[in-house]
C-alpha cells in the first residue's frame, strides 16, 4: 500500500506559490512556511496515528484537487433557498471566494466588524494561529499553509449582537474537484454576546474538499452561541477544526450538526482557561449509505470552578460509519470541575458501524464528572404502539428516529434557529429502512 505521503494533489507546491507571491506580509510568509515545513515532514495523518485510527484519509490523498476556482455566478434566490435564516447578517463564500453581492453585511450594528479573510489578512498578525497549534490533531498545518478565504468577526466589549450571523459556504461544483481552505476567526471582547452559524452547503453531487479551521477567542464574560450545519455533497470531503479559548466566566455553546459529506471529520476543542467559564458542546450526526463521520472533541478544564456539558447523538443507517471520540481533561488544579459527557447512537441497519469512545482524564480530586455512551436500535414496543395507532411503518420509524435525536435540538436556546434546524433534520430522516 502506498503511504499517505504520496498525494495526488500537490498541496506543498500550491503553498510554495502562495508564500512566494508578491506582497505577502513577512509574518504571514513565516506562518505559512512553518506550516509547510511541518506538512512536508508529517503529511496527512495515517491510520496508525491514534487520533486517526478509525478514519482513513487514503481516498482523500488519492484525489487530484484543483486550487483554481473558475469564477461563477449564482443567483441571490439560490442563496436564499439554502440559507438557514432569513433575518441574519449573511456572509457568503462561493467556491472559496467571498461574495460581496450575495452577502448582507453593509449595515452592521456598531461594535461589530465582519470582514473577509482575503481582504483583511494583513491586519491579522497577532490574531491568526492563536487558538490552534500545528501539532494538534486535524489538518491545521495544511490549513495554515493554504488558507485563502474565511470570515473574521470581532465584537467590541459589552456589545450584544442582536441579529444572528450566518456564514454560508457554498460549493457550486462549477470547478471540478475544488479544494478550498478556509480560516474563520471569531473574537469576542469582554461581556460581548453573539450568535454565529457556520453553514456548509454543496450544490453539486460531485467530489470536492472543504478544509476549514475556526478559531474562537472569548474574553471575560463573553457569551457565544455557535452552530455548525454541515450539508456538503455526499461525495465531498469536509475536514474541520474548531478551537476556542475561554477566559473567566465566558460561556460557549456549540452545536455541530453533521448531515452531509462522504467523509466528515471535526476536531472541536475548548480550553477553559478562566474560572467560572462554561462550555456546552453538543452535536448530532445523521449518516447513511457509504458516509463516514468522525467527531473528535476535547475539553480542557485547566483551572478550578469550570463546567462542561456535552451531548452527542448519532443516527446511522445503510453502510455508514461514525466515530465519536470525546476527551475531557481535568487538569491538576482544576478543583470543583463539573463535567458531563454523553454519546448516544441509534443504529437503523445491520451494515452500519459505530466506534464510540468517551474519555475522561482526571488529575484533580474534588470534581463532579460523569460520562456515558450508548448504542441501541429502535424499540420494538414503541414501534408497535405507533403502528397499532395507525401510523405506517416508515412514518413510525422516522418519528421514533426524530424522537431519539430531538433532545440535541431542544437544548438550542434560540427558538427560530431551533425550528429551522429541526426542519432540516426532519427532511434528512430516513424515509425507508430495513427492519433492525
Amino acid at each position, binding site marked *: 500500500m502506498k503511504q499517505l505521503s504520496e498525494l495526488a494533489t500537490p498541496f506543498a507546491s500550491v503553498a510554495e506559490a502562495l508564500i512566494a507571491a508578491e506582497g505577502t506580509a513577512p509574518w504571514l510568509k513565516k506562518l505559512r512556511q512553518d506550516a509547510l515545513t511541518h506538512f512536508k515532514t508529517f503529511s496527512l495523518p495515517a491510520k496508525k496515528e491514534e487520533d486517526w485510527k478509525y478514519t482513513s484519509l487514503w481516498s482523500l490523498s488519492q484525489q487530484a484537487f484543483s486550487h483554481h476556482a473558475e469564477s461563477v455566478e449564482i443567483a441571490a434566490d439560490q442563496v436564499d433557498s439554502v440559507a438557514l435564516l432569513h433575518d441574519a447578517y449573511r456572509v457568503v463564500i462561493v467556491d472559496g471566494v467571498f461574495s460581496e453581492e450575495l452577502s448582507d453585511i453593509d449595515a452592521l450594528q456598531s461594535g461589530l466588524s465582519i470582514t473577509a479573510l482575503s481582504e483583511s489578512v494583513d491586519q491579522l498578525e497577532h490574531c491568526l494561529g492563536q487558538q490552534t497549534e500545528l501539532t494538534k490533531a486535524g489538518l491545521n498545518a495544511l490549513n495554515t499553509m493554504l488558507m485563502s478565504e474565511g470570515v473574521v468577526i470581532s465584537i467590541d466589549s459589552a456589545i450584544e449582537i442582536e441579529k444572528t450571523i450566518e456564514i454560508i459556504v457554498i460549493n457550486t461544483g462549477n470547478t471540478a474537484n475544488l479544494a478550498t481552505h478556509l480560516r474563520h476567526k471569531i473574537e469576542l471582547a469582554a461581556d460581548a454576546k453573539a450568535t454565529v452559524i457556520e453553514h456548509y452547503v454543496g450544490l453539486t453531487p460531485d467530489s470536492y474538499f472543504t478544509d476549514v479551521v475556526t478559531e474562537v477567542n472569548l474574553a471575560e464574560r463573553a457569551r457565544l452561541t455557535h452552530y455548525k450545519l454541515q450539508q456538503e455533497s455526499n461525495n465531498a470531503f469536509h475536514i474541520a477544526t474548531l478551537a476556542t479559548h475561554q477566559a473567566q466566566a465566558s460561556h460557549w455553546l456549540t452545536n455541530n450538526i453533521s448531515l452531509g459529506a462522504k467523509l466528515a471529520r471535526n476536531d472541536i476543542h475548548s480550553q477553559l482557561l478562566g474560572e467560572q467559564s462554561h462550555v456546552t458542546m453538543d452535536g448530532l450526526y445523521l449518516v447513511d449509505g457509504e458516509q463516514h463521520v468522525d467527531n473528535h472533541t476535547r475539553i480542557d478544564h485547566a483551572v478550578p470552578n469550570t463546567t462542561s456539558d456535552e451531548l452527542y447523538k448519532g443516527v446511522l443507517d445503510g453502510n455508514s460509519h461514525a466515530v465519536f471520540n470525546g476527551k475531557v481533561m481535568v487538569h491538576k488544579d482544576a478543583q470543583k470541575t463539573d463535567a458531563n459527557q454523553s454519546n448516544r447512537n441509534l443504529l437503523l441497519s445491520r451494515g452500519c458501524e459505530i466506534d464510540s469512545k468517551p474519555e475522561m482524564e482526571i488529575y484533580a480530586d474534588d470534581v463532579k464528572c460523569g460520562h456515558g455512551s450508548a448504542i441501541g436500535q429502535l424499540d420494538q*414496543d414503541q414501534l408497535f404502539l405507533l403502528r397499532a395507532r395507525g401510523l405506517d411503518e416508515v412514518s413510525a420509524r422516522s418519528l421514533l428516529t426524530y424522537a431519539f435525536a430531538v433532545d440535541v435540538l431542544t437544548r438550542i436556546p434560540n427558538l427560530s434557529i431551533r425550528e429551522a434546524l429541526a426542519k432540516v433534520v426532519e427532511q434528512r430522516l430516513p424515509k425507508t429502512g430495513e427492519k433492525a
Partner: protein
Amino acid sequence: MLEIKNLHASVDGKEILRGINLTVNAGEVHAIMGPNGAGKSTLSNVLAGRDGYEITQGEVIYKGENLLDFEPEERAQRGVFLAFQYPVEIPGVSNIYLLKAALNAVRKYQGLDELDAIDFLTLVRSKMELVKMDEQFLHRSVNEGFSGGEKKRNEILQMALLEPSLAILDETDSGLDIDALKIVSEGVNALRSQERSIIMITHYQRLLDYIVPDFVHVLSKGQIVKSGDKELAKELEKTGYSWVDEQPEGVSA
C-alpha cells in the same frame, strides 16, 4: 364483527393459544377473564398484529375480511383498537402529536380530510374532558413519567378520539383507583353502540359492575374453557380458577 375460529399461536415454538373460538357481534361487550399466563394478552396482541407470534392454525374474520392478513396499521385504520396492558413510554414524541397522527391515519383511510388545528384541538379537548385528563398531558411525551393510572387513562383518551369499531381493552382497569375506574368506565360506556364491539380483559368483577358485559368467557391455557353471562364473573369471584384444571382438555376446541 369478529369471528375467531380455532386460533392457534406459538411463540418460539411454544404454543400459547391452543384453539380459540369466539364470535363477537356488533354492539356486544365481551369480558375475558382467566388466570395469569392463560394467553389473554397474547390473544389481544395477535388480534392487533404484533410481530413475534406464529399463527399455526385457524383464522380471524373481521368485517368480512381476513384480519391476520393485515399489517398492524391497516388493522388500526380499519377500526381495531388495542388498549395496552402495559402502555409503553415514548420520550420525544408528544401526546398531541401521536393523537393527531393517529386520527389522521384513520381519517385518511376513511377518505376524510385532515382536521384543521382548531377543530382538532376542540375535539381533543372534549375527549379529555370525558376521561378527566388535564390539558398539560397533551404536551408531555407519550406516557413518559405518567403514573400507572394516567397511562391507562391515556389509552382510553386515544380510544375515545379514534372511535374504533372493535376495542380490545387489556386490563385497562388494573392500577386504577376507584374514581379513575368510574371515569374510565364512563369513557367506555360512552362508546358503546350498536356499531361497536368491545372485548374487555379483566381480573376483577368490579369493572363489570360499571361496564356490564353481554358475555363472560374464561380463558385458560390458551383455550376458552367456559362462557356465560355476567353471573359467571360473580361465580368466579367466589370460586377462583381452581376448578379449571379439572376440566377435560380441549373442551371448547
